[in-house]
C-alpha cells in the first residue's frame, strides 16, 4: 500500500508539472497564432496609386493652414486598395530630388483632424477593402510643391511601405483612347486634349461639355495639350499653328490659322490646368482682350521665340527657372521624357493669334496681336491640323534623334470640330 502511495504521489507530481507546461505551451501557441494572423494581414495589404497620383482641388486652393502658414494648399492623393483587407495610413513621406530644400530631410506628413501644414486628414487614412480612388487630403506648403520629381512613401499602421514617384508618367495610367507620336511630340486623344476661352467665356471647361464643339464668330484661345517624347528639352517656334479648313456649310473651303500665343501665367495654370507642366510668365492670356493682361479689344499676347520685346522679358534658349518659379523666360520649352518610350508631363499650348508673332512682323510689334475666330456659318465643320515647329536644346547630352542644330516641323492630323452658337442653348450643347 505504501508503495502504491509513493507511486501515486510521483505520478501526481509529474502530472501537475505536465499540465502546467501544457498550459504554458497553449498560451504560447495562442500568441504564435495571433502574431501569424497579424503577419498574414500585414502581407495582405496592397495599395496602388493611380494616375495622376496627386492633384489640386481647383475650388479650394490657397486655403490657409493652421499654424500661421498662409501659403498652405490642400492636395488630394487618390489610392486604390487592391487587397481584401482594410488598410490605415499612418504616415506619408515625401522626398525630392531637391534634397534638403523641400524640407529639412524628408517631408513627413502625419494624420491630423484639421488643415495644418504637412499633415493629412485623419478621417481619410482608413481605406476600405477593395476600395478604388479613395481620396486622401493633405496639406502642404504650395511653394514647396514644385515640378521636381518626388517620391511618396505611404506607411501603413501594420508597417508596410508603398512608394510611388510623382509625377506619374502619363503612359502608365492615363489610358488615353489613342496616341499620336510625331517627332518629339505626342498627343493623347482624350477629353482633356483641347479646351478654349473667349471674351464671354473666361473659364476653360475641362473637359468640354459637348465634345469638339466650339463657338463660332467669337475670338478664341485654344489650349492644346502635348507631351514630349524626346529625352531633350524641346523649344517650340512661333511658326507653329492650329490650322482649320472648313469642309461643310456655307463657306466651305475657307481656312483659318490660330498661331501660338504667349504662355499662360502661373496663377492661371494652377487654377485650371493642374498636374501638367507649364511655362510661367506673368503675362497671362486668359481670354482675348483680358484687361488684367493689359489687353484691349480682341488682342492677345503673341508668342515670340526670340524677341527682346516679348513681355515681360526675353525668350532665350536657356532652361533657367524651368522648375516653376515665375521668370522672364516665357518660352514654350517642353520638359524631356524621363527615358525613351515615355512621355513627359503634358504642356498646354495656347493658340489664338491671327499672325505668327516675331519681331520682323509689324503686326506683332510689342507682342500683341489679334485673336482669331471661326467666321464661317454656325454649325460648319472644320478639319484641324496642328503644324508644329520645334528645336531641341541639347541639354544634358540631348537626344540622338533630335539635333539642336536644326529646326524640325511636322503637321499633325488633329481633330475635326463643329462650330456652335453660345446663344443657342439647344443641343448640341455649346458653352
Amino acid at each position, binding site marked *: 500500500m505504501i508503495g502504491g502511495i509513493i507511486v501515486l504521489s510521483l505520478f501526481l507530481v509529474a502530472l501537475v508539472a505536465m499540465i*502546467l*507546461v501544457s498550459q504554458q505551451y497553449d498560451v504560447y501557441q495562442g500568441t504564435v497564432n495571433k502574431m501569424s494572423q497579424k503577419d498574414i494581414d500585414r502581407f495582405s495589404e496592397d495599395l496602388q496609386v493611380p494616375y495622376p497620383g496627386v492633384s489640386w482641388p481647383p475650388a479650394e486652393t490657397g486655403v490657409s493652414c493652421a499654424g500661421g502658414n498662409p501659403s498652405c494648399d490642400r492636395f488630394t492623393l487618390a489610392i486604390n486598395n487592391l487587397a481584401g483587407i482594410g488598410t490605415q495610413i*499612418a504616415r506619408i*513621406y515625401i522626398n525630392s530630388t531637391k534634397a534638403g530644400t523641400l524640407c529639412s530631410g524628408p517631408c513627413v506628413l502625419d494624420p491630423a483632424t484639421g488643415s495644418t501644414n504637412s499633415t493629412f486628414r485623419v478621417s481619410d487614412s482608413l481605406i476600405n477593402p477593395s476600395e478604388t480612388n479613395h481620396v486622401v487630403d493633405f496639406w502642404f506648403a504650395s511653394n514647396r510643391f514644385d515640378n521636381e520629381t518626388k517620391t511618396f*512613401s505611404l506607411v501603413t499602421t501594420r*508597417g508596410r*511601405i508603398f512608394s510611388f514617384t510623382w509625377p506619374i508618367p502619363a503612359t502608365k495610367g492615363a489610358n488615353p483612347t489613342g496616341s499620336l507620336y510625331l517627332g518629339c511630340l505626342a498627343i493623347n486623344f482624350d477629353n482633356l486634349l483641347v479646351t478654349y476661352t473667349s471674351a464671354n467665356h473666361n473659364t476653360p471647361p475641362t473637359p468640354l461639355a459637348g465634345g469638339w464643339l466650339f463657338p463660332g464668330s467669337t475670338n478664341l484661345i485654344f489650349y492644346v495639350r502635348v507631351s514630349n517624347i524626346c529625352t531633350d528639352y524641346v523649344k517650340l517656334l512661333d511658326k507653329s499653328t492650329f490650322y482649320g479648313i472648313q469642309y461643310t456649310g456655307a463657306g466651305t473651303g475657307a481656312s483659318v490659322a490660330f498661331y501660338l500665343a504667349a504662355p499662360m501665367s502661373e496663377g492661371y495654370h494652377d487654377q485650371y490646368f493642374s498636374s501638367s507642366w507649364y511655362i510661367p510668365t506673368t503675362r497671362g492670356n486668359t481670354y482675348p482682350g483680358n484687361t488684367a493682361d493689359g489687353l484691349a479689344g480682341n488682342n492677345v499676347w503673341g508668342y515670340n521665340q526670340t524677341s527682346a520685346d516679348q513681355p515681360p522679358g526675353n525668350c532665350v534658349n536657356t532652361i533657367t527657372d524651368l522648375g516653376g518659379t515665375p521668370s522672364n523666360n516665357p518660352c514654350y520649352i517642353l520638359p524631356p521624357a524621363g527615358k525613351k518610350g515615355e512621355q513627359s508631363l503634358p504642356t498646354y499650348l495656347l493658340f489664338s493669334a491671327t499672325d505668327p508673332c516675331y519681331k520682323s512682323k509689324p503686326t506683332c510689334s510689342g507682342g500683341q496681336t489679334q485673336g482669331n475666330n471661326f467666321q464661317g456659318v454656325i454649325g460648319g465643320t472644320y478639319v484641324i491640323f496642328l503644324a508644329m515647329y520645334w528645336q531641341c536644346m541639347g541639354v544634358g547630352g540631348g537626344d540622338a534623334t533630335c539635333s539642336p542644330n536644326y529646326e524640325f516641323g511636322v503637321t499633325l492630323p488633329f481633330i475635326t470640330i463643329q462650330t456652335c452658337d453660345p446663344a443657342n442653348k439647344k443641343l448640341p450643347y455649346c458653352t
Partner: protein
Amino acid sequence: MKRNLAVSTVVANMLMISITLSLAAILVAWAGTTYGTFSGSSQLFFLQRGQALQERFVIEYVYFIKNPTSMIQIFVRNVGVKEIQVAAIYVNSNSFTGSFMNPQSPCTVDNNAVTMTVGQSSSTSVCQFLVATTWASGSTVSIVVATLRGNQATYWARGP
C-alpha cells in the same frame, strides 16, 4: 544455549516502515522540486519567447543627409502589440548604443535603451534616430535595429 538479542518483529516492522516513508518523502520532494523547476523554467521560456514574438517593428524610412554626408536619419515604427526597447543600431556593423543612437524628441534614451510604445495615437510609437556615420554616394549601407528582447529589423540602402 546462548540466546541472540534483536529487535522484536514489531519494532523491526516499524523501523522498515519509517525508513521506507522517509525515502518516499525524499523521493517525492526531489521529484516535486525537479518537476517544479522544469515547469518554472518552461514558463519563463514560453513567457520570454511569447513577449519576443509579440514584438513587431519596421525601419520605415531612411534618409541620407547630404550636407554633410555624415548623418543618416532612420525612422523606426513599432507595429507590434508590445512596447519595444531599442538597444542598439548597427550601420555597416558599426554599433551605436545609448546616446549615440541620438533619438529625436519625443523619444529619449533611458537606461541605455529607447522605449517605443504601442499604438498609432502614441507619439513614441515612431522614433527618428539621427545616426552620425559617414556614407558615400552609390555605396551600400546596411542598417540593423536591435531590441533588448533580441529581435532585429534590417534595411539595405544605397547612398543616393
